[in-house]
């Protein structure tokens, strides 16, 4: 059992993910791309919900802001992806700073309501500001990043060439998301991350260790928003268009459910939730149009039987397995 935990699973998964276009069809690449982006989105939310104990109902706002930022920069202003992508994170972080400043002064249900209100404001602006955001129609056909440099690389590394643009984008997404997740992992495992968990566990006590709870919560809010924005920037391109519903509250609830499904108590939980939910969605949608019914039922079962989500259930199963081996 010990040897299993020594394997760098993350690296294995990452390398395996690179082989999806070669092994599977365009459909699988599409799915994998979707999963990877949502994994980042969900993990960013978990920084708030799972690690700091702040339940946000408006996280999609930053996703939307990131998507629109990259979309507007690339489509309307011709800015290269290299700049437009980080810009998504920066823009989202700025909004998160302003919105978050007001949100962290409130607790619990009021906090959740204000995050919702801000998200709806973002949605309303995107929905109506036709000149800049394309209004209700959104902005279709966001250009892919330029991949000509890959052709140069392909001269040396033969397996890099011979892929379609969408597959090139998939590889790019993989690398970027892996990088972001690595960063988030560092943040969560740092002293800062530890302070966040103390706030989650007992804000009053954290206050009396000297922690300026509000400042930490705001910092967590900004970091989470920034990464959500990055995810949004990627999603806009992947989705071949940016639309106002990226910021609508139902998007926020989707990502919240993903986080819960995978398990809020672990780092990898939300990513797992993204994988399972998107895969399930694709499977079910081909049989029936009543996906919300299935999702709702799964959610109810989760809440009553597996509150720790998939990761939580796996962890407790592993613990029981280990205990049995010890006894035997």
């Amino acid at each position, binding site marked *: 059992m010990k040897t299993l935990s020594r394997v760098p699973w993350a690296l294995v998964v990452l390398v395996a993910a690179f082989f999806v276009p070669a092994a599977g069809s365009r459909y699988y690449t599409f799915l994998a791309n979707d999963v990877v982006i949502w994994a980042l989105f969900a993990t960013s939310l978990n920084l708030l919900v799972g690690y700091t104990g702040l339940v946000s109902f408006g996280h999609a706002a930053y996703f939307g802001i990131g998507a629109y930022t990259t979309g507007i920069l690339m489509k309307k202003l011709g800015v290269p992806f290299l700049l437009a992508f980080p810009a998504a994170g920066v823009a989202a972080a700025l909004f998160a700073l302003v919105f978050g400043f007001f949100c962290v002064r409130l607790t619990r249900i009021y906090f959740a309501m204000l995050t919702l209100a801000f998200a709806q404001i973002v949605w309303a602006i995107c929905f109506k500001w036709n000149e800049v955001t394309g209004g209700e129609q959104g902005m279709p056909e966001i250009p892919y990043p330029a991949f000509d440099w890959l052709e140069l690389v392909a001269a040396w590394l033969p397996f890099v060439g011979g892929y379609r643009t969408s597959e090139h984008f998939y590889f790019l997404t993989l690398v970027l998301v892996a990088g972001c997740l690595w960063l988030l992992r*560092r943040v969560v495992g740092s*002293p800062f991350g*530890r302070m966040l968990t*103390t706030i989650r*566990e*007992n804000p009053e*006590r954290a206050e*009396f*260790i*000297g922690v300026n709870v509000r400042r930490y919560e705001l910092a967590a809010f900004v970091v989470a928003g920034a990464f959500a924005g990055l995810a949004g920037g990627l999603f806009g391109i992947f989705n071949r268009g940016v639309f106002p519903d990226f910021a609508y509250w139902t998007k926020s609830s989707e990502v919240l459910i993903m986080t819960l499904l995978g398990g809020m108590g672990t780092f990898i939980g939300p990513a797992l939730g993204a994988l399972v939910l998107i895969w399930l969605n694709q499977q079910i949608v081909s049989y029936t149009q009543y996906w919300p019914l299935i999702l709702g039922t799964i959610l109810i079962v989760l809440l009553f039987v597996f509150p720790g989500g998939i990761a939580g259930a796996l962890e407790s199963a592993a613990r029981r397995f280990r205990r049995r081996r010890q006894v035997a």
Partner: protein
Amino acid sequence: MLEVRDLRKSFDGFQAVGGVSFSVPRGSISAIIGPNGAGKTTLFNLITGHLRPDAGSVSFKNREVTGIAPHDLCRLGMGRSFQRTNIFPRLTVFQNFQAAVLWHRGCGWNLLAPVDRFYRDETEALLDSVGLLDKAGEVAGFLSHGNQKQLELGITLALEPEILLLDEPTAGMSAQETRESIRLIERIARERGLTLLFTEHDMEVVFAIAHRITVLHQGEVIADGAPEEVRRHPEVRRVYLGERR
């Protein structure tokens, strides 16, 4: 070291604390006693910044600290433990202490380094001094009540405070646990030169170690002085002999 002047606080017309004044000299062990509902916890909350007083002032080390935020007070050197055990339930005992040490050492804003190695020795020394080293890996929420109180105390000590405010430190403990707890607290206070201010119900505890006692009744001070004086004070006897023991 700590001076409280004419503190008042009302809740919806009910006066919880009405014009309380007293001072706590450096290095002393002082106690605030009074029957249930006398306003002890409210008074504490006013001193530690959890509540804003309607009137009056608090000064700490000759600085006005009335109503400043708890985390700032903490930085100035005031430590507090709570009546209901206030720990981080899902973290391990080690992590509970480490969090306090991390903050005290100023690493709270380090966003990238892995946290497990930080201040390991210091945290373990701290665990040892409160007698919880053997329980380092246990999840705090599963400890016994007495252990949790020790943990609570330890977290407060990790911040190297100059004054320690303890709200009912022996509440819910058995007689044995109470005696041990009090001995521990007194030893720590002596070793570190701490000033101690605590509230209590248990008379035995108070008369055993306190240098000064302030008696509160219905939000007002009815006696204040050395244990002998207080024990003989007629108001105090009236208020107490009718209710407890």
